[in-house]
């Protein structure tokens, strides 16, 4: 019975999921291609042009951001990637109760011997799995890009010595020769596994947003109103986060934004520079000195908000009156 319901949910969601997944893979691959086309030096020049105040808007140093790892990590903050996950989470979450109520299909469904819990959990299962698939697609697109692209690098020609010399090595640069362009496989420069924590961060973000959308949907009867409320809260949360980042006096505002834990660049930087803390809740030096909260904290905060929202939504949906469709 429940498997029939889940099959139905998959059927409803398949085209949106397919489109978002395709966009995700294609865009992440394209983004790695763009990174491979732009020389590190050129990117540094671009960053140097930015006012120093802009540093506060990124959770990582500009110095790390100009590396290949840093530049590729920016893909997780791109509009298309965040947008695809947001569209998926909001559309599926809002459909859960108010969408079905508005269409009138919930009435026919609950005329069958199905509990409200089963009806909601079938939706939740498909939505959460979809968010996980999208997060995987982001990583898979990046992985494909890293495996198929070569980075363009401008190097000074060197002379290879038969025997390496002390302090110099076996390669001696030829100072008067014209610099030449070489293509180095991206896989030699970047480890794709660095982006797994960022994908997990993206999944947790999707879970949080889907949970909140479902919560709003659980008490509402109009889907358009549910979407309006969720998008409104989304915008407010972004503005609160930006205000929190803009000035030190307003730093406390960051704790009021649920989007603060979504920091994929920071997560990738930790995986790159402090790999032992890639999956930890707290980061301390060997002598016990506090470094900061680990990436797992960010994942768990967002996932907890999502799970809590789902639990409240289930409680509301189980007890509410279901009005006749208009």
């Amino acid at each position, binding site marked *: 019975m429940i498997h029939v319901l889940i099959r*139905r949910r998959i059927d409803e969601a398949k085209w949106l999921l397919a489109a978002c997944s395709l966009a995700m893979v294609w865009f992440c691959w394209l983004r790695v291609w763009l990174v491979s086309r732009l020389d590190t030096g050129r990117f540094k020049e671009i960053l140097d042009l930015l006012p120093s105040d802009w540093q506060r808007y990124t959770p990582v140093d500009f110095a790390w951001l100009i590396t290949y790892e840093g530049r590729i990590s920016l893909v997780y903050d791109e509009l298309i990637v965040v947008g695809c996950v947001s569209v998926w989470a909001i559309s599926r979450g809002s459909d859960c109760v108010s969408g079905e109520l508005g*269409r009138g299909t919930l*009435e*026919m469904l609950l005329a*069958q*011997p199905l509990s409200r819990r089963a009806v909601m959990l079938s939706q939740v299962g498909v939505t959460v799995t979809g968010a996980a698939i999208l997060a995987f697609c982001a990583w898979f697109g990046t992985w494909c890009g890293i495996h198929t692209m070569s980075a363009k690098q401008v190097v000074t020609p060197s002379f290879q010595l038969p025997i390496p010399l002390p302090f110099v090595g076996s390669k001696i640069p030829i100072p008067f020769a014209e610099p030449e362009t070489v293509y180095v496989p991206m896989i030699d420069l970047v480890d794709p596994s660095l982006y797994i924590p960022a994908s997990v961060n993206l999944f947790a973000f999707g879970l949080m947003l889907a949970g909140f959308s479902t919560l709003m949907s659980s008490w509402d009867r109009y889907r358009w109103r549910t979407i309006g409320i969720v998008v409104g809260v989304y915008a407010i949360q972004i503005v609160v986060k930006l205000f929190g980042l803009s000035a030190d006096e307003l730093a406390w505002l960051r704790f009021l934004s649920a989007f603060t834990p979504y920091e994929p660049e920071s997560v990738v930087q930790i995986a790159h520079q402090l790999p032992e803390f890639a999956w930890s809740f707290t980061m301390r030096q060997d002598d016990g000195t506090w470094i900061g909260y680990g990436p797992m904290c960010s994942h768990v905060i967002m996932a907890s908000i999502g799970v809590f929202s789902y639990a409240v939504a289930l409680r509301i949906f189980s*007890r509410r009156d*279901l009005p006749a469709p208009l």
Partner: protein
Amino acid sequence: MQRQTRNCFAAASLGGRLHKTVLAVKPRELVARRELRLQSKTRQASCGDIGLFVETHSLTKRYRRFTALDACSLGVEVGEVFGLLGPNGAGKTTLLRLLLGYLQPTSGRATIGGLDCQRQSVAARQLVSYLPGEARLYRGMRGRDVLRFLAEVRPGGDFRQALRFAERLDLELARRVAFMSTGMRQKLAFAATMSSDSPLVILDEPTANLDPSVRATVSEMIVEAKAAGRTVMFSSHVLSEVEEVCDRVAILRAGQCVHTQVIAELRRRHRLAASFVGEVPTVPDELADSLRISRGGHGELIIEADELSSSLRWLATLPVTEIRAEPIGLRSVYDKYHVNRDATA
């Protein structure tokens, strides 16, 4: 969790038992027995005195200051076709939605097959097939897929039977729901509802949006369901079809169940319009209880008679110049609680 599972089994076995009991008796015998039972109960008929398969006890639903259903108590017997009558907003749909657990009652309780409609909603719904007033189905699905889905999602759902019903209702199953007319969607949902083997069928205005020939088929299918021992509850605004298929009807007004009427009893009662020469006769004592006399237009006397033969025998002794006899019909009962009251108001 364990308790819930036990309840589900209890509901399923109860449903099965009811079904088997009913099917073991021949339909005609069953109808005859029920007629006898109902006749005896009619004398004390008020809403809420009979109860076997569906029961409501002082069921009330309030939305802030608006009372949609007010202390409604009624009962529906196994194998009975029970009609719900009333104008829009009388509380018919609210009553049905409370039975299905869509709404939480403000007070009172409802049971289906002994199972509480709120606390054991899933188990209770296992005994019910429900057709909403305006059936909304998945618009992207084709008719055949809707029938398959609804047959698969319900234990005891029968896809082949649904196909047979669909054929009988002349449905085009290859068409997507989005491209079906309201009537076609209604027929599709009706076919799906009737195809399951649940012992209770609840139909909320099943013939609204249907053309007359399909209405007749729907009435036929309801009668067949009754003959198969299923209990049917349905609301409608079409008095003639309610009169045709129902064993008993409840009339609702402003959320209250104001009257229940056994249709068999109604069929026995007639209205006689007689014109006399001379004085108005005195009713004999032996007929006083079974006759109600009032004065109609054009100086006629209107006589409502429970027993037609004895009334006619008495009338034959009088100087009657003209006489017309017609069955009373549900209309006059309905009007008594709605039209006349509205006029008075």
